């Protein structure tokens, strides 16, 4: 788990570079909350606290919550989200290794349903200083100068609510949210996550199946529809480099506890998450769909595993085992 935290570092560094140090405050908030909740629940459950606390799983959840929530979200929002993740999504289901749903994604989904506007107030690149960000987090909030819709949100709003003549090319070319390919700033953070994720693969912490299947499916389905109607569907690279796609590919769908585990199952699982993500992004009411997509596929994971058990040694019934 320590190496997973390490692999998140490049992404966090890029985040700080583009959006300021507020994210570090959020990470500190979620980490302290997660560890405190973990200690409390572990001692209530009569488990050896230090042994479990040092496994780092609570910290991974905490950091993912900080990185998926807006970095200028009010402090109580991230704290509440973290508590929900640790206490309900993790420990009420039996603790480490037993949770059917990805705890960080449970927190995100619950919060975006409960507080949709607070979860949509993201900082603009270079807007506002650290003090203003701290005000946003700890109050009094004055957001106008520092927030901006995320690229996915801006695109969705433009395409679905503005006049019918809006096209993807027009929107992407206009807004201040957009960078060269994806979101301004976000595309580079995505590249940094990619670097950390590749290192995880090289370290054999994760296998290639999940990230590759996720990114390839997202790219393929987005590419297909963008070919079909480029005015209404965003191009594939935009999808891959915006929102939570890259973080999701290497750090969220790769959660082994709540996901599929067989090689074939991993491909199906991650492909399913990517497909649902694209559908929610393109047709749904929420700007990004990774959290819901992951939770939906979590439900299917045991079934996927059940039907994708690889054949065991000597039972491959084709030419290999036969004399």
């Amino acid at each position, binding site marked *: 788990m320590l190496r997973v935290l390490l692999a998140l570092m490049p992404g966090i560094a890029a985040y700080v570079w583009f959006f300021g140090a507020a994210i570090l405050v959020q990470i500190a908030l979620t980490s302290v909350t997660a560890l405190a909740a973990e200690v409390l629940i572990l001692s209530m459950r009569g488990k*050896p606290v230090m042994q479990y606390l040092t496994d780092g799983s609570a910290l991974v959840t905490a950091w993912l919550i900080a990185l998926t929530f807006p970095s200028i979200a009010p402090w109580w929002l991230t704290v509440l989200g973290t508590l929900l993740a640790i206490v309900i999504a993790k420990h009420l289901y039996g603790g480490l290794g037993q949770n059917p749903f990805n705890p960080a994604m449970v927190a995100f989904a619950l919060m975006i349903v409960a507080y949709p506007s607070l979860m949509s107030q993201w900082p603009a690149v270079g807007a506002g200083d650290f003090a203003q960000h701290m005000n946003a987090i700890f109050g009094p909030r004055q957001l106008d100068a520092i927030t901006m819709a995320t690229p996915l949100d801006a695109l969705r709003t433009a395409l679905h609510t503005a006049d019918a003549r809006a096209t993807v090319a027009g929107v992407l070319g206009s807004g201040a949210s957009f960078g060269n390919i994806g979101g301004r700033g976000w595309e580079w953070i995505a590249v940094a996550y990619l670097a950390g994720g590749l290192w995880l693969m090289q370290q054999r912490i994760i296998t290639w199946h999940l990230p590759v299947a996720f990114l390839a499916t997202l790219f393929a389905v987005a590419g297909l529809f963008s070919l079909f109607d480029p005015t209404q569907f965003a191009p594939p690279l935009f999808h891959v480099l915006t929102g939570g796609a890259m973080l999701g590919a290497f750090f969220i769908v790769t959660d082994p506890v709540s996901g599929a585990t067989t090689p074939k199952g991993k491909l199906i699982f991650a492909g399913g998450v990517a497909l649902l993500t694209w559908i929610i992004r393109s047709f749904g009411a929420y700007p990004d769909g990774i959290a819901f997509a992951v939770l939906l596929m979590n439900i299917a994971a045991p079934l996927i595993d059940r039907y994708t*058990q690889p054949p065991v040694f000597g039972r491959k019934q084709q030419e290999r085992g036969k*004399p």
Partner: protein
Amino acid sequence: MISRLFTFKGGVKPDSHKDESAGAPIRKAPLPSRLTIPLRQSTRAMARSVVEPGQRVLKGEVIAAPEGPMCIAVHATSSGTVRAIEAQPVPHPSGLPAPSIIIEPDGEDRWLELKAFDYRSATPQQTRDFLRDCGIVGLGGAGFPSHIKLGPGEKGIETLILNGAECEPWITCDDRLMREHPDGILSGALIMRHITGARRILVGIEDNKPQAIEAMRAAVGRTSEAEIEVVAVPTRYPAGGEKQLIRVLTGIEIPYGKLGTHFGVQCFNVGSAYAVFRAVEHGEPLVSRVLTLSGNMAHPGNFDVLIGTPIRELLPLAEPRADTDRYLMGGPMMGVALQSLDMPVVKGTNCILAGSPVLFPPPPPEMPCIRCGACAQACPAELQPFELYWFSRARIFGKAQEYDLFDCIECGCCSYVCPSRIPLVDYFRFAKGEIWAREKEKAAADTARERYEFRLAREEREKAEKAAKLAAKTAAGREKAAAALAVAQKPAATPEEDAKKALIAAALERARAQKEHVQPENVGNLTPEQQAEVAAIEGRRAEIRDMAKPHLPQED
């Protein structure tokens, strides 16, 4: 020449620790003060003792005869006196004592007169019987009788594989044997090729044993025989697992429940080949084996040890260090902890490993499984160990079987890589044990039910028989009384009385007829065939009674 090597999935690369003992030439272990030779060879085979306490035996003399096809003869491993035949603790995971013959050596170590066996003019069956009578089993650990493995398969054996991989860390006995007796090993292999009619011989040796490979290749060069190849296989545990080595050398995967012979391939440990050579060329039964003493020892080494030597008497040869806290029989991956040092060396004992808290630190506390899948990547049987773990832990044994629990070869790779330090193999052994116990219980329950039903039926029948007898007796008595009365009253008989008498007689007749009907149905009126069958069964019963007699408690 084999064109290419195959690979098996999974496997791990633990520190090999071969250097500690690989340089030590094989030394003969001194004669112990007593020899404990177990009679049980497997769950299905136990030899029958043919000696009596007090009897003097020579080295190599048969002390127990094979019973059943899976059994081999058992020999005195040194000359001396039989002291007792009793249950003794033997090295087996169960730790249960097993009947053993205890011999006190006389110090002379005098062989029985030995005679080489001319296998070239014998039939394969005769050679196999000879090997059985020489007590030859696989020396790789499992101890499977060699005469069975050399038996004719469905299609015959095409490839004979010699297993010199020795993939377990620390163990070097096969390495030394190959370095020191390559010609003997090869001769043994050629004898086995002669028996099986195999075309080629492949010797698989892990590439971390260059001297052994060199020695075996030189021995192959010295023979005039063709189609023998010494192959260096990549060092990766468990490359020396029988199925893994067959896979690497031939590409054939042998599933659980199938034997090599089904696929035209058979695999023998190099030590077994050497034992075959000693038996056939020198007439020597298998009375000793080479094993490694290593681990936390001052002078690790390889020793030629008599079967039955108590491990306690062996240890001083390698001088265990003071902080040794436990001993393993076998390597660190698959070995089992020795519960008592009084246990004897058996034919499958390839290593005694001394452990200390420094050398083998106690595992850190177990954490929950997070389904990371590291075990599945390491599993050479290509199982999903974490799924088996969930099912075993939850005691859902049916599911565990569905997920191929019994394909697990207990190599320990999964436990080795588990980041949560879960002793997975322990869970699997537990689950297997539970399943076996349940099956046994079920079988016992079935037998008990059958017996109970049979008893009920028998009691019912006996009751009916008794009732019939009683009825017959009463009817006969009444008849007699009636007859006496009739005789006494005859002169005064009137026609009416006659009619009455006739009525009574008719009633009695009916009663008798009825009673005859109640006779047990399945013993009378047998056809000649049925009678012959009954006689044959009775004969067999008598035979069994005779056979059982010597084992029954003596009555005086």
